[in-house]
């Protein structure tokens, strides 16, 4: 248990309050039994109770200044952020460039990110990227009849 768990507790309480407030806007009609607002409100209460429990269970950490956590945050890898950035770019490019080109660029970039700090083999990675993007496209479109955006190549 640590400060992150307390943060999660407060987040859970805030989420519960938000759901409770938003549930007021739900149009409801229930001649018998419960309506569409019932379960969101139950969940809201649940989030608040669980949040309070998480905070209560870790209350001793509330006023403790944790040096080790700050240090570990600073030392955490940049790669997940780069991965998220390249994924957002990839998804944004699919409708424009199409699956094959966007996937080739993505696979190449993602391999470089995952292999950061080691020796990079650019030509090998480029070949793998092109080959796998084309192969998966052909396999899914021609064999499994799945629709995939073709983009500028279509």
């Amino acid at each position: 248990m640590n400060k992150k768990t307390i943060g999660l507790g407060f987040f859970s309480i805030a989420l519960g309050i938000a759901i409770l407030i938003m549930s007021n806007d739900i149009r409801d009609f229930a001649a018998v039994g419960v309506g569409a607002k019932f379960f969101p409100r139950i969940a809201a209460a649940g989030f608040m109770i669980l949040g309070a429990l998480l905070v209560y269970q870790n209350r001793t950490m509330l006023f403790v200044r944790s040096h080790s956590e700050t240090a570990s945050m600073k030392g955490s890898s940049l790669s997940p952020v780069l991965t998220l950035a390249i994924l957002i770019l990839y998804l944004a490019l699919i409708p424009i460039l199409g699956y094959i080109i966007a996937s080739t660029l993505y696979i190449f970039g993602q391999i470089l990110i995952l292999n950061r700090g080691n020796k990079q083999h650019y030509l090998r990675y480029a070949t793998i990227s092109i080959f796998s993007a084309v192969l998966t496209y052909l396999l899914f479109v021609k064999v499994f009849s799945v629709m995939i955006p073709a983009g500028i190549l279509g």
Partner: protein
Amino acid sequence: MILEGILAVFTVKTLLLIFGGTVLGILFGSIPGITVTMGVALFLPITFSMNAVEGLSLLMGLYIGGTSGGLISAILLNIPGTPASVCTCFDGTPMARNGQAGKALGIGIVFSFLGGIFSLLVLYFISPLVAEVALNFASFEYFSIGIFSLTLVSTMSGKSLVKGLFSALLGFAFTFIGMAPITAFPRFTFGIKELNGGISLLPALIGLFAVAQLFEASEQGAGEKVKPVEYAIKGFGFSLKEFLSQKINFLRSAVLGTGIGILPGLGGAICSVVSYGIAKNQSKTPELFGKGSIEGLVASETANNASTGGALVPLMTLGIPGDNTTAILLAGFMIHGITPGPLLFENNGVLVYAIFTALLISNIFMLISEFGGMRLFVKILAVPKHILLPIVLTLCVIGSYGLNNRMFDVWTMLFFGVLGFGMKKFDIPATPLLLGFILGPIIETELRRGLMRSQGSFLPFFTEPISGVILTLTILIVLFSAFKATRKRKSNQHQEVPTS
């Protein structure tokens, strides 16, 4: 009906799909870091263009292959490909290091096959009986079963029950998005028209179980290249005498694996650990366990594969998923418009027996392909993760896009991927979220239906005999879990005191 079901599978296309599914499942199971759950989730969208028998046969192949595939990396790399093959490492790796890799693989493969077949027989004979009882269920009983299934959260929560409950509640909350059941008024759509239909299960699944893994791998880095141990197999790799000496051990492990597999929430890993422990207790040579004992290997591999048929009993008869993979298999049924449960046996009897046949064939294909294609699997095991994962991600994109042919689902997948990664950072288990996501709509719809039937009274939920028993059982389990969690917490606090 039985014959019709069997014949439905015997088409060239379906047999090829089962074979392909089994081989791919073995690959997914054998590559550490890529799970069978991920494999089944990835291949769900491909089944859209198939009929139910073909689609579900492919998924069953993936399930069987994936459960068994973990033994390859467990023996040759000392890394369990799946959590269920952890105990296989204990004796498989020492055997491989002593120059008996071929024997270890042979024993593992054959007893995986036999364990799978044993559990399939149990599934075949038990599930129609359970389904017959469950035929009497109505809204009250379904609501109670939904609530009862939520108690599985306690077994899936890992270190913290509260975090497990938070995860389940989060999954439940995601189901509020879209049209409310029965009245069909929109809820929590924030003016986004794509949200009117709610969040699709598939992109959420792929995000939580596949994309999140990519983020995790990117944080860990490429890692060192792994080199499998050399091996050679002659015949099955072991003698008839060695085989016959394991008959009691096999039978005990198969019964344990299937029995524990039937209990929702426990899964193959627990089956394997329990069976391994009991085999060691009962053994005449317990000192050999952990040093390359055939008995240990047989116990682990028989039990984890025997759990497959067991886990399918509650899924097919009651619609309750027992673990991650069966939860995704449940989604596989739903995608084809089939709701697992007692009515499945009445309305889709042919499909039920087709699935049983597909499972049997898949076990046979698993045996053949693991012996015949071992060299290929070992070669693929050596492909580095930094090359494999980006390619898997492009498959995730295809899978999510193929659902409704819209990029919105792909963005949903990314959202759940980030959420899954964030949850891992906060030690929040992802499986309860999935459980909440699947059970949420069932619970809400059946409660509202039940209340309409009872003119707004909650009483029948407790007074109807089956529903009452299930709800009482639920309350007892909740109280027991809470008691256990409090005791565990207190004992942890006591242990921390002297060190602080």
